[in-house]
Structures are given as structure tokens and as C-alpha cells.
């Protein structure tokens, strides 16, 4: 915060931290005129992002994604279900987003965060409409058995851009997912082919070996905060609370627009602002794609 304070104003008399707490908006605007943010980022830059795959051993697929200090842990548990009548050869995905009390001072036990179901819905809409996963790949025996993938995303640390981090951890968990080898037993139930039996395949083996899903057109997102004419990419929780207009753009890996959310807010965005957001997202998408590829290739080496 080594910015020179303009004279003739209260800010030259009070401590920087006090000024930040008392006049958060003025504090931010002062920075924005200098095209820099209090954490030292230029307006259009997202925070450092990392992905760690396979964080949860008890799940079939898992990933830990961090954007700045926002941390998401996603894990997929595979269970078997009877597919519905209208889509007998398709599996199913159930996505749930949780904000446990550990992640933020505003969440208390027994009083769930209001935003959690919203993000949950956005995530399942985005993942289903992106067509990333071919549900037919989750089929086991047509009309009899199919996979139900339970994807649970836990927010471990909430510091803004929750949806971006949640989506990133979700797609990373899918890229890490290993569907176990299973066979049909005598009772008509699907059981995992355990390694102890020497992987001996019975004649009813449904899935001969562990397999990965083919992910096409992976969706990536970027949330921007709009304030006056400024666009701030990847806001922190503080920025989100001070400047309330948020735009989230989701693009898939071939730069097609998957979805766009602008839930109200005091700033009415010009179409040019939206275009700028999309342009920022396109850049971000390439960054994220690279980070995800690196995480996956890192896994293969191990």
C-alpha cells in the first residue's frame, strides 16, 4: 500500500488500514485510478491458481483447486443406480456445493450460507449444458444399471470468486476420475472387481478395466466485478462486498460461450463491458486449460 496519498483529504491524516476500513469504496477508487488493486494485481489479472489432483483417497476422483486463498475440494463417489425409463443407457451426475462453517465467518452450523444452493445450481447447469460429459459413458447395463456420480464440492476457504474455483475443482475432479472395474454378480448387483481375486474376470464383467471419462469441451469461467468503467477480474471477498455488480462468463475450451450470469447489481453494464469480460475470460480459459493439463500430466508421471 505504498501509494502516495492525495493531499487535502482525511486520508493523509489517518492510518492506511483505518482508512481502508472506514472508507472502503474511496480506498478502492483511489487504487483503481492508478490501475492497480490493493493486493498489487493489475485490474485484469486473476490470482495465482493451483490444482492438486487425487487429494481424497476415499473417492474415485478428487481435486483441490486454489485461486488465491479461495480453496475448493471436490470429490466424486461412484455408485450404481437403475437408469430411468426415458434414458435407459445413460448415467447420472448429482452435484452438490457445500459451504461448511469452517470456510467463512458468516456461515454457522445449522445456518447454511444463502449462496451455496445458488452456486450448486449454477454448477450443475453449467456442467450439463457444456456437454463436457457424455452420459452414455456412465452406462453399465442398458436399462439395468448405470453409474451415478456424486460430485460434492466443499469450500474450505471463501475469499471471492467461489463459482470459478468450484467449477475448476469440479472439472479437475472429473479429469482425475477413475471409474472402477466392475462385474455383475449372481444377484444382479454390480460389484467391484477386487484386486485380491487377482483381477479374475468373470464372464459377466461389465467394465473390464478402470477407465477415465473422455472430457470434451471443458468449461472454464471467470468472474469479474464491474464498478463504474472498471472491470476487475477474479475479485476477492472484500472486492465482491464493496463493489456489488458481478459478471460471470463461462467459456468452453473451443471458446464457445456456455453461460453468462449477471445477477442484478447497481451497475448496468454496457455491451462493450460484457465483451471485455468475455475477452478476459478467453485469456483466463487458456491459462486454466494449461494449469489443468499440467496437473494431469504431473499425475501420469507419478
Amino acid at each position, binding site marked *: 500500500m505504498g501509494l502516495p496519498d492525495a493531499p487535502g483529504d482525511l486520508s493523509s491524516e489517518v492510518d492506511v488500514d483505518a482508512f481502508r476500513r472506514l472508507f472502503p469504496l474511496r480506498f478502492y477508487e483511489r487504487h483503481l485510478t492508478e490501475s492497480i488493486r490493493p493486493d498489487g494485481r493489475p485490474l485484469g489479472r486473476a490470482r495465482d491458481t493451483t490444482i492438486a489432483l487425487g*487429494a*481424497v*483417497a*476415499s*473417492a474415485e476422483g*478428487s481435486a483441490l483447486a486454489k485461486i488465491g*486463498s479461495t*480453496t475448493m*475440494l471436490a*470429490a*466424486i*463417489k*461412484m*455408485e*450404481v*443406480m*437403475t*437408469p*430411468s425409463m426415458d434414458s435407459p443407457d445413460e448415467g*447420472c*451426475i*448429482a*452435484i*452438490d456445493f*457445500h459451504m*461448511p*462453517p*469452517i*470456510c*467463512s*465467518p458468516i456461515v*454457522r*452450523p*445449522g445456518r447454511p450460507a444463502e449462496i451455496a444452493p445458488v452456486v450448486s445450481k449454477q454448477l*450443475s*447447469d453449467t*456442467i*450439463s449444458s457444456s456437454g463436457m*460429459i457424455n*452420459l452414455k459413458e456412465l452406462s453399465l447395463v442398458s436399462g439395468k444399471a448405470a453409474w*451415478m456420480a*456424486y460430485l*460434492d464440492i*466443499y469450500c*474450505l*476457504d*471463501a*475469499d471471492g470468486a467461489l463459482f470459478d474455483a468450484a467449477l475448476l475443482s469440479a472439472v479437475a475432479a472429473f479429469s482425475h476420475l477413475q471409474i*472402477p472395474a*466392475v462385474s455383475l454378480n449372481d444377484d444382479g*448387483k*454390480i*460389484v*467391484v472387481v*477386487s484386486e485380491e481375486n487377482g483381477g479374475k474376470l468373470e464372464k459377466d464383467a461389465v467394465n473390464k478395466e478402470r477407465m477415465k471419462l473422455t472430457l470434451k469441451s471443458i468449461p472454464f469461467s471467470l468472474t469479474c466485478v464491474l464498478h463504474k468503467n472498471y472491470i476487475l477480474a477474479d475479485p476477492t*471477498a472484500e472486492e465482491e462486498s464493496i463493489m456489488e455488480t458481478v459478471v460471470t462468463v463461462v467459456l468452453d475450451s473451443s471458446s464457445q460461450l456456455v453461460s453468462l450470469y449477471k445477477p442484478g447489481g447497481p451497475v448496468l453494464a454496457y455491451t462493450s463491458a460484457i465483451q471485455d469480460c468475455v475477452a478476459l475470460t478467453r485469456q483466463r480459459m487458456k491459462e486454466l486449460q494449461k494449469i489443468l493439463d499440467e496437473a494431469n500430466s504431473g499425475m501420469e508421471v507419478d
Partner: protein
Amino acid sequence: MAGKPGTTPTTYSPSPTNQKIRRPIFNENEVDWVRPDGRGFHQCRPAFFRTGAVNAASGSAYAEFGNTKVIVSVFGPRESKKAMMYSDIGRLNCSVSYTTFATPARGQGSEHKDFSSMLHKSLEGAIILETFPKTTVDVFALVLESGGSDLPVVISCASLALADAGILMHDLVASVSLSCLGKNLVIDPILEEESYQDGGLLITCMPSRYEVTQLTVTGEWSTPKINEGMQLCLDACSKLAKIMRSCLKEATSTSQE
């Protein structure tokens, strides 16, 4: 795709969780059986602690013992709930929950009431509640993955998180459990060992003061065996406390740089 509304099909896990025969990992007469993870009977899993895992909290810690992974956040001291009566000492509020994917079979992810109250009882004796009158300190724990000895890991991790939050305590609280399998006592049991234990013993203590804040025993024990079990746990607690202390020292030395 994400489940048509109103139709949640019943699902089952394909893993053979309901093995009918208890795996004979040890024999009554056989002395030299090995534990599933190859540890000695009186050997704990390597413990890993890190403070400051959650930025949004006043203090936090992450602990990893083998496959048991826990994260604890501490908030406060902050305003007590409106309905609370005046109190001239501080309040401690604890909650322990599991993620849905923590256990081998998919769970509900709800609060673990029993553990919450155990965590409260283990910590309240160590915290100097007089230092924050009228306010509440919230200790929230989330078990990311359950790999056995979950509660002791939560307790140790929580005391580290409290230290990270700068809450005054008489001493760190370290906790270790052991399982009784036949004639043998195995310390820091994993999930598999816990599932067929004949008895269990859990100690939480303040190692520097050499005081037990919480002790629970299940199963049938003779007095010499309780003595042996308690001694094993207490020794392990003091070793654990050393690791916890060095973790705290490391955290402060890096933040000073």
C-alpha cells in the same frame, strides 16, 4: 443431467463394504502379526500439521495422519448469539462434521453431535475462558477424509488452530487413541482396526502440565491393562505435542521473515 428434480434414484455402492467374514488379520495365539499398514503396535502414524490453512478464519490448522485429514477453523472471540445470557467468562462452541466423501460409504455430511461435545469437553479445560468475557469462540472442524482415530486428530488439530488464533490456553491439547485387539494394544488405529476393535481408549491431555482433560474407555479392561494403555497414550501425546509445538514455531518464524 444433474438429477431431474424430484427423482432421486436409489443408489448403492458397488464396493463390497459388507464383508461377512471379519478379516483374520491376527490370531489370538500368534504374536507377530503385522498391522495392515506395517507399523509396530506402539508406533503412531507420521503426523503432519500446518497452521493458517484458512485465511477467512481467525486461526486454523490442517492435520494429516495417514489417510485421516482434518481441517479446523477458529472464529472469534466474537459476539455471542443474541439468545445467550450474560456470562462473565467466555463461551466455547464446537462443531465437528464430515464431508460426504470422508467415509468409504457415502455419508450425509451432517454434524457429528457426539464428537462435537467430546471436542468441547476436551478443550474447555485448557482454554482460559476468563480472557474473553461475554464473547464466544467458535471451533469448527471438518473431517475431509476419515482414516481412523478421527476424533483425536480433530482435537489435536483444534488446539493448534486455537493457538494460531491467539486464544490463551494453559497448554496445547494433544490427543491419542488406542485399540485393544485381542491381547494386543495398538496405538493410533486406522479405520480397519477400529472397526473390529475389542475395546478402545482415548486420552486427551495437556502434556506440559501432565494433566488429562478427557478420557474415555470402551470394552472390557483389567486395571493393569488400563495402566499400560494410559501410559502408552500419554507418552505418545507428549511426542505429538513436540511436533505440534515445532509446527507453531515454524509458522511464527516464517511469518517474521
